[in-house]
């Protein structure tokens, strides 16, 4: 059964069509990767799924609830970690998490224990009372994931969760996500540029380019479809996206990504 269904989604910004009839489904409990170059439409799809953007046409259902018509319900079912660093640097890890616990209306008696539980799950207990601006990039990301999990979401949306992280921090984030899946069975939708990550961590992936889904399946299936002996997912990615501008993404998107990378150190 599918936790997320996207059907023939079209997103326009004025005359520019960012997403052209994209459709895919994510099985409950799986890790689904949305791959594509800058400007492919991945973030637009994320914005539609978080009910921040209304599509020009098409629909998306999250756990049986239509995103546009039932935005409030959908927001209670999802956890979202945006690409930009969203933790407040002037607060401690615990204060950040407590703020999100209140925003998600967790009952007062559960709040403290739930915050402690998530900080422990993300290996942040010893740093919980330090201000976030003293954290490493990987720790900030893990804190953000902890904050997104406080209300026990069934679907976690991660927009480039490991962008700007060094390989050690990247592995730590994925290790914690794997533990989380084992414990809770949460479904993950991840956008990423890293083919290596997609290959290792995602059960299935969809490759997007110029607003369209160009290929969907397990990394093995996509590699087999390429028909090149020893071909990697990166080869698949390149073959499916070669017709797009290699330096896609508008100035704003690029400057935001750079700022995130800078904040992550």
């Amino acid at each position: 059964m599918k936790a997320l269904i996207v059907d023939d989604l079209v997103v326009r910004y004025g005359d520019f069509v960012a997403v052209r009839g994209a459709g895919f489904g994510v099985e409950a409990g799986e890790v689904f990767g949305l791959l594509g170059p800058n400007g492919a439409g991945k973030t637009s799809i994320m914005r539609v799924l978080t009910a921040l953007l209304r599509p020009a046409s098409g629909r998306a259902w999250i756990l049986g609830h239509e995103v546009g018509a039932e935005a409030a319900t959908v927001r209670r079912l999802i956890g979202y970690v945006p690409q930009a660093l969203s933790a407040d640097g002037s607060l401690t890890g615990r204060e950040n998490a407590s703020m999100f616990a209140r925003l998600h209306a967790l009952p007062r008696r559960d709040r403290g224990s739930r915050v402690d539980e998530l900080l422990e799950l993300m290996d942040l207990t010893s740093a919980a009372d330090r201000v976030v601006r003293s954290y490493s990039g990987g720790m900030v990301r893990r804190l953000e994931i902890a904050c997104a999990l406080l209300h026990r979401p069934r679907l976690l949306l991660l927009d480039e969760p490991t962008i700007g992280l060094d390989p050690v921090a990247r592995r730590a984030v994925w290790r914690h996500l794997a533990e989380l899946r084992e414990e809770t069975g949460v479904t993950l939708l991840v956008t990423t540029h890293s083919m290596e990550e997609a290959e290792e961590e995602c059960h299935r992936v969809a490759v997007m380019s110029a607003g369209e889904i160009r290929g969907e399946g397990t990394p093995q299936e996509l590699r087999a479809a390429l028909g090149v002996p020893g071909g990697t997912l990166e080869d698949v990615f390149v073959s499916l996206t070669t017709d797009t501008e290699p330096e896609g993404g508008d100035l704003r998107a690029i400057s935001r990504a750079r700022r995130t990378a800078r904040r992550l150190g």
Partner: protein
Amino acid sequence: MPSVAPAAPPDALVEAVPALSPAQLASSYLGTVVAMAQAELHRARRERSVLVARAAQPLLWLLVFGAAVSSVRDLGVAGVPYKAFLVPGVLAQSVLFVAIFSGMAIIWERDLGITQRLLVAPVFRSAIILGKAVSSAMRLS
């Protein structure tokens, strides 16, 4: 009029979500405002020097500039001590400055993508605005 949600496709996993009662909605609204105000209190506790600077600025205007300017004759505030005349203006200026800086902080947060996370949380948009306003008022007082 609330829009009618289209039926989910047959292969969709459907998770029933109980509707919130008016009491729960009110508590969520208040919780959002309190959460933002509390975060501001934590920040203020840590940035005492900023608090001192904020408090010192109006006093500087009032005591130093006020005292200096009041010694000039013919200011046209006959019958009112000059410092008393100055107080409403200094207060208005403090309000204006805090409002400007708070507004700038919101734009900065929006540009960094921080606001996105608040908007994705299941909270009332007006509660976010009210929370920000309460936080700014606390910064002022």
